[in-house]
């Protein structure tokens, strides 16, 4: 980073301190506008762990910390804000290498500075933002920028965005800029326009509602094989009585698609279809989703190293895995990650085709199965397939020959939530999972040759309220599989002393591992203190390596052991 930028960062830092001081003094003085903000800090002190094979070299920073400080100032129609980020002494393991530099002696040194800033003016039907902003067109399949600190994603656009609503039923957004990459911006330039039209008033029907949407997004990259890549999205959403139908279709110009086994790059057009149907009334609802993706990876660069990066750097669209988001320990061992691009490997990947169905219903109070408090039941079935295709042995070009190739993944689950009385409540879950590790890769880091994995998972959770806010919770989990690393179990104990103090202990144990030396306990103990919008937590434990998924986006993390601290507050 240049000396000029260092001075700029110092200047911005001073501005932040001034703003904070002003916050403390003028929080309630409405004439001076209002200031709000937030601070998040996640730190870990890593340890060597012979059990998991983790060994730090003496020069590797053992203590690592991610810190995010954001402040906004609002005055009438104007709003300004900035986010300071510090990855010091180095970013947490698993975060993008763009957040650090390598010193001449080869030691990673974390970066820090004002990462994003913006100014916004809003009046009536006009909204103008300059600086860094986040935006989503439609479902995000064609364009989305967002921030997920747990995953290390912040792909904000730095530039100009204008939103107008010429009529109550028509909204138009236009934007232009460069994407954030670490503390810099991308070489690729983004331009986009999105429109949403609500036909509700024109239809003059209380039962029927129709909304239309269309988007155009382009990426210009000087010197690329194709300098301009255009993508188009068309959407329709129909509400009729208790039914809702939504559909979206996306086309994308030929873009870098994959690097074959010989190291040659291939360029192909992309497409996506997304459809969902929902029926719902009080006490019963179901929803079905279908999606087909082909070459839909969309980045602000075409460098194969960027496109294949595991940190989700420079991603321009949102391709979440459409499966149920489980949140227990053993339920996250075999998770599906979206297959949006071609992979030339022994079991080639050509894209994906599949969907999921959810059913929610409530057995009412005082019914035969409902009991005094009712019973809530959720069912989910998700299945995903490869597209059928072949790869030419000479040119390594691919050809799609059918819609459904090998099955990637299947997940069938039932969750029953029951409140027995004012003190006791329980949750019972059963999940049957199929995972094709030949195509998707081993989620537990076992390399090639794992084959397919079938697993049955049982989870029982029970909470007891003692009195006031004093409560205890136990979670028992078991995963049974004859494949991969065989059986796992997990137990969680949690106790809330009151609404401020909590503590927990978790042990995830791969007790069925055929290699007895690898029957590892992934334990974690922790405590937290919460008051108002502030939460401080400390924990110590061993984290297994593998696929870590949050919000439908996944990345691989390496196993680690250590002491964690986190502090979150807003003001």
């Amino acid at each position, binding site marked *: *980073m240049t000396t000029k930028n*260092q001075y700029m960062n110092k200047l911005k830092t001073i501005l932040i*301190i001034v703003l*904070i*001081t002003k916050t*403390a003094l003028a*929080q*309630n003085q409405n004439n001076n506008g*209002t200031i*709000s*903000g*937030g*601070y*998040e800090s996640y730190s870990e002190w890593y340890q060597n762990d012979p059990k998991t094979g983790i060994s730090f070299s003496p020069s590797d920073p053992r203590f690592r910390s991610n*810190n995010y*400080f954001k402040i906004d100032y609002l005055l009438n129609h104007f709003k300004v804000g900035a986010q300071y980020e*510090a990855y*010091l*002494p180095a970013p947490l393991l698993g975060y993008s290498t763009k957040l650090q530099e390598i010193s001449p002696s080869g030691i990673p*040194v974390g970066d820090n500075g004002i990462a994003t800033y913006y100014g916004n003016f809003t009046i009536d039907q006009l909204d103008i933002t300059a600086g860094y902003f*986040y*935006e989503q067109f439609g479902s995000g399949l064609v364009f*989305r920028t*967002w921030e997920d600190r747990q995953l290390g994603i912040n792909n904000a656009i730095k530039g100009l965005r204008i939103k107008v609503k010429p009529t109550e039923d028509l*909204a138009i957004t236009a934007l232009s800029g460069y994407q954030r990459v670490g503390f810099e911006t991308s070489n690729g330039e983004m331009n986009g326009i999105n429109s949403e039209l*609500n036909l509700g008033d024109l239809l003059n029907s209380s039962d029927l509602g129709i909304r239309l949407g269309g988007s155009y997004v382009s990426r210009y990259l000087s010197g690329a094989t194709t300098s301009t890549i255009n993508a188009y999205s068309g959407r329709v*959403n129909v*509400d009729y009585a208790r039914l809702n139908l939504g559909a979206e279709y996306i086309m994308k110009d030929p873009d870098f698609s994959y690097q074959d086994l010989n190291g040659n790059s291939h360029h192909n057009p992309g497409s996506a279809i997304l459809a969902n149907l*929902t029926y719902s009334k009080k*006490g*019963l*609802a179901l*929803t079905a*989703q279908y999606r087909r993706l082909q070459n839909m990876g969309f980045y602000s660069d075409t460098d194969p190293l960027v496109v294949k990066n595991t940190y989700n750097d420079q991603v321009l669209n*949102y391709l*979440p895995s459409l499966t149920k*988001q489980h*949140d227990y320990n053993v339920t996250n061992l075999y998770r599906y990650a979206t297959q949006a691009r071609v992979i030339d490997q022994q079991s080639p990947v050509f894209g994906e085709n599949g969907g999921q169905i959810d059913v*929610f*219903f*409530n057995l009412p109070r005082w019914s035969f199965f409902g009991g005094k408090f009712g019973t*809530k039941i*959720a069912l989910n079935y998700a299945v995903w397939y490869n597209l059928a295709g072949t790869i030419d042995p000479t040119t390594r070009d691919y050809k799609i020959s059918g819609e459904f190739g090998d099955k990637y993944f299947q997940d069938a689950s039932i969750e029953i939530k029951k*409140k027995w009385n004012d003190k006791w409540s329980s949750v019972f879950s059963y999940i049957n999972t199929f995972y094709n590790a030949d195509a998707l890769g081993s989620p537990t880091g076992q390399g090639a040759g794992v084959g397919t994995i079938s697993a049955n998972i049982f989870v029982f959770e029970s*909470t007891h309220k003692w*009195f*006031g806010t*004093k*409560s205890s*919770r136990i979670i028992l989990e078991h995963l049974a599989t004859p494949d991969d690393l065989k059986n796992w179990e997990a137990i969680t104990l949690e106790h809330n002393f009151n*609404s401020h103090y*909590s503590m927990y202990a978790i042990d995830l144990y791969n007790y069925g591992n055929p290699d007895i030396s690898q029957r590892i306990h992934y334990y974690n103990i922790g405590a937290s203190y*919460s*008051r*108002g919008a*502030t*939460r401080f937590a400390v924990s110590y434990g061993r984290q297994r390596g593998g696929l870590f998924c949050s*919000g439908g986006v996944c990345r691989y993390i390496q196993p680690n052991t250590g002491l964690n601290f986190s502090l*979150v507050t807003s*003001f």
Partner: protein
Amino acid sequence: MRKSAKQYGLIALLTISALLCRGQQLFPDVTIKTIDKQDIQTKNIFHKNEITIVSLWATWCTPCQNELDELNDKNWKDKGIRIIGISVDDARSVDRVKPLVNGKSWDFDVFLDPNNDLKRALNIGPIPYLAIVKDNKIVYQKTSYVPGSEDDLLKIIQNLK
């Protein structure tokens, strides 16, 4: 960039400042969506002079749903208190919100914040997050959920009156 004692001092100063800064905060006015995906400004979701409990939740957040289940089981309407749930589910799961709300027979208004514009404007970290709002001002806020804490809300609201 060179790391130095100054940078760590700055982080410490920011941390302390953030922890010390307290006061009533305006509920941010941003565009979110109704459960039927129509745009709505957050300033238009509140009723004048009404105390409103706002919960930010998601279909994948079990503690959030436990809190809303408990809030739903209590009779707030008779006490002149309104409940609002704002889902921060993104495109992955936003289509599950309406079915889940109906499937659970929740009897309060639910809105959507699919690209987390409101969550970002509130400057909050992980959910669950709950705020008590009166006249567009946040008069109380808390993060995380502990069973039984819903009983404390009534006491807090009574102290506000």
